[in-house]
């Protein structure tokens, strides 16, 4: 097995690196959208509520790959017609990496919205009132009171989302991003040893998920300091 896989190890490792990069950058996008979405869902503005509600419903209704394809191709057409309408004479090309990151971030942003919304609601209201009474501004409240505490409530669901997100990145190979699955697939095709290479992919994903669960368990432990357990 090693003599088959050996020559392809650099390619596989490069793919693994791209997979990790896609996952982490999409996670950042998802967290940003998730916080924004949670804020919109909890705000008193009717418009913000409706927009955030439509966003989460839409995303949960449509499969990842379909949404990715729409954003990848549709976004390209949309941006260029926008540019054309502005009267500029340039052609903007969205590469597959960006499209993948934007779409995965967009999709998991909706799941993160629910995660963060639940976590914010779980922080006792009195604490926020106390912070307001102390004269803290809203960003300060978020940084000092809300943020650290909602982290604890958000972590289990956040961890689940991350694990699903990590596996979803395999789908960007269909769009042509040269990540782990894409590279292993081409290696498997040229050696006619697809099973071997797909097994390698599985092992790498299992390693990544195992590292993630270990790190998440550590984080949950860390953020639960001060919580008494029965």
């Amino acid at each position: 097995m090693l003599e088959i896989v050996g020559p392809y190890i650099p390619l596989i490792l490069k793919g693994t690196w791209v997979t990790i990069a896609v996952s982490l950058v999409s996670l950042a996008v998802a967290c940003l959208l998730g916080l924004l979405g949670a804020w919109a869902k909890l705000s008193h503005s009717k418009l913000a509520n409706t927009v955030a509600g439509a966003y989460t419903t839409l995303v949960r209704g449509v499969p990842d790959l379909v949404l990715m394809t729409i954003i990848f191709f549709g976004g390209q057409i949309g941006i260029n017609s926008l540019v054309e309408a502005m009267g500029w004479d340039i052609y903007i090309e969205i590469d597959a990496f960006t499209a993948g990151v934007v779409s995965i971030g967009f999709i998991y942003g909706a799941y993160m919205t629910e995660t963060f919304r639940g976590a914010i609601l779980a922080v006792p209201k009195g604490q926020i009132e106390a912070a307001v009474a102390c004269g803290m501004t809203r960003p300060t409240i978020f940084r000092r009171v809300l943020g650290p505490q909602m982290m604890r409530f958000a972590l289990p669901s956040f961890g689940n989302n991350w694990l699903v997100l990590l596996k979803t990145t395999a789908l960007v190979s269909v769009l042509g991003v040269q990540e782990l699955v894409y590279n292993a697939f081409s290696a498997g095709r040229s050696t006619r040893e697809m099973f071997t290479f797909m097994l390698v992919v599985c092992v790498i994903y299992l390693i990544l998920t195992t590292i993630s669960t270990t790190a998440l368990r550590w984080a949950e432990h860390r953020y639960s300091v001060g919580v008494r357990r029965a």
Partner: protein
Amino acid sequence: MHWDVVLDNWQLLLQGLWTTILYVSASLALGLILAIPLSILRSSSNRFLSWPVWAFTYFFRGTPLLVQIYLIYYGLGQFESVRESFLWPVLREASWCALIGFTLNTGAYVTEILRGAIQATPYGEIEAATACGMSRAQTYHRIIMPGAFRRALPAYGNEVIFMLHGSVVAGVITILDIYGAAKKINALTYTYFESMLAAAVLYMLIVYLITRVFKRAESRWHAHLRPRTE
């Protein structure tokens, strides 16, 4: 926008809709049948019984569905013994490979959902059953499983939607499901946006129906948890 393209190919989309529903419901049914005995083994205190099931769910929950399908569809042909066995006519077909892959995947997820529900059985119920003189089998049949199914219902509803979302992978390996049909319309007419948007609408429709069905099921099976109306 060329919506007439979508309308002209409505038969293709309808066929895709039917295929998606068929694959998802067949694999969910088979996966559930697989998961019931596995979840009982998984929650066993005997390590020799629970460990193999743990390994199975660890693999199928830790790797992307796309890779699992590639492993079965493109991978198994690597082995001469598989190619020459009586199973080859089955394993050569994309449709069977998709069905097998989906079944094992959802089977693994449902196993873990049911395990959680089985382990959440209040101990008093089991004690009461033992005190009534029920055998182990009777306790499972009458007490543990009915309660576990009821507790598992919300999580199972999510799993059904995830399976529907995951089923687009069938379209990647040449099966004409909703995604496959949209891909084909796109290839025939070069209208990414319209065909994928039509697919998205169909998927949303199914998700809407599934959530309706589960809401009704929950109001029936969780009737005892509803707040009392005077």
